[in-house]
């Protein structure tokens, strides 16, 4: 069965959804992600849904659910890159993801997670090379 890959990056877990979500896929994602958070002791989870252009009520609720679950496990969760059409649909469906952080893109999402964990902002690589 196909699965959505979860990438570990330092204290963070990165999930990028690039395929059309269906009910079983999102359930598998929820299981994998909670498992990973617990086994890696991840402090932040970033879910990138910028390629997702359609949601139904179930997927919308599950996304909110995943974010709430990982927050419960002491990992800050940020959902990034939601498309306008998806945002409108979610609001119309009455899913406002209360208590879940959101950001415009992956970059801003990472900054947000870093500031929440009080980590130093990522160094600019070019400056590193100059030194």
């Amino acid at each position, binding site marked *: 069965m196909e699965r959505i890959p979860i990438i570990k990056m330092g204290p963070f877990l990165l999930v990028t959804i690039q395929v059309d979500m269906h009910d079983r896929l999102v359930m598998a994602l929820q299981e994998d992600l909670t498992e990973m958070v617990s086994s890696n002791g991840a402090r932040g989870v970033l879910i990138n849904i910028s390629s997702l252009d359609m949601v139904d009520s179930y997927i919308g609720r599950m996304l909110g659910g995943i974010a709430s679950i990982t927050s419960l496990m002491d990992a800050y969760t940020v959902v990034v890159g939601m498309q306008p059409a998806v*945002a*409108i649909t979610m609001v119309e469906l009455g899913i406002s993801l209360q208590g879940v952080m*959101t950001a415009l893109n992956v970059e801003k999402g990472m900054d947000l997670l870093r500031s929440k964990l009080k980590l130093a902002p990522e160094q600019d690589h070019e400056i590193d090379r100059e030194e």
Partner: protein
Amino acid sequence: MAKVNTIRLMAEKKDELLQQWIELHLASLSLRKDIIGNENLYRQSRDFIDAFVQAAEGADFEDINRVEWTTVRKILAEISTNRSRQGYSPSETASYVFTLKEAIIRLLQKEYGVQPDVLIQETLTISKILDKLGLLTFETYSKAREEVIYRQQQEMLELSTPVIQLWDGILALPLIGTLDSGRTQVVMENLLRGILSTNSDVAILDISGVPTVDTLVAQHIIKTVSAARLMGAECIISGIRPEIAQTIVQLGVDLSMVKTRATLAGALKLALDMRKLTIVQIGKA
């Protein structure tokens, strides 16, 4: 047969009829003789009579919706649509067909003046069909008008919801006029698209120009704010006038999860704070 008489007469005396018709028609137009060139009108009318005679020969006289009348209907529709766009009054447009009726009846009178029975019969038949065509002109005229109104409405929708970039990462959306669900939809879509294209973190919704805020409008605003938040942008509502603040509280609308400011200046200041920016005075003004 009765109908054949009139049609034959129309075909035979086409030039005379045309002359008379155009004279009558021009007399009925009070101001706009200049807009349609005489030549144009002449050609159009000749086409119309030709099509009319042709259709009437082959078809049922009663029903103008039949295939045989397609050309006639098309010519009339074209004329009324054009006239509606050029700003003719409805009666000026309808008089095109009605003056033809007058011209035909005059022709009939000249021909059958001595046979009142035939004259009445012919007049009745031709009146019926031309009245139907007259109504058709009127319908097309109002349809064309409605299209114009609809287009203007769409343009106003577009015009009234500009998304302005105030600062790097700060958008403003001044709302003017009554908010209904159709407009809110456009506002929401424009705002979200603007957030995406300019990569903005903060959006200011200014409602100084919204005359009244009721529960429905408040709900629309809350929806817009929630949608922007889902995308990762914060919304600030500004321009809340005293009477609107009173109404919102009296209606029991909960705006506590939305940041609000009284003026656009206040909202801009808050937005700059949120982006950790500040404005400093660098000298004496």
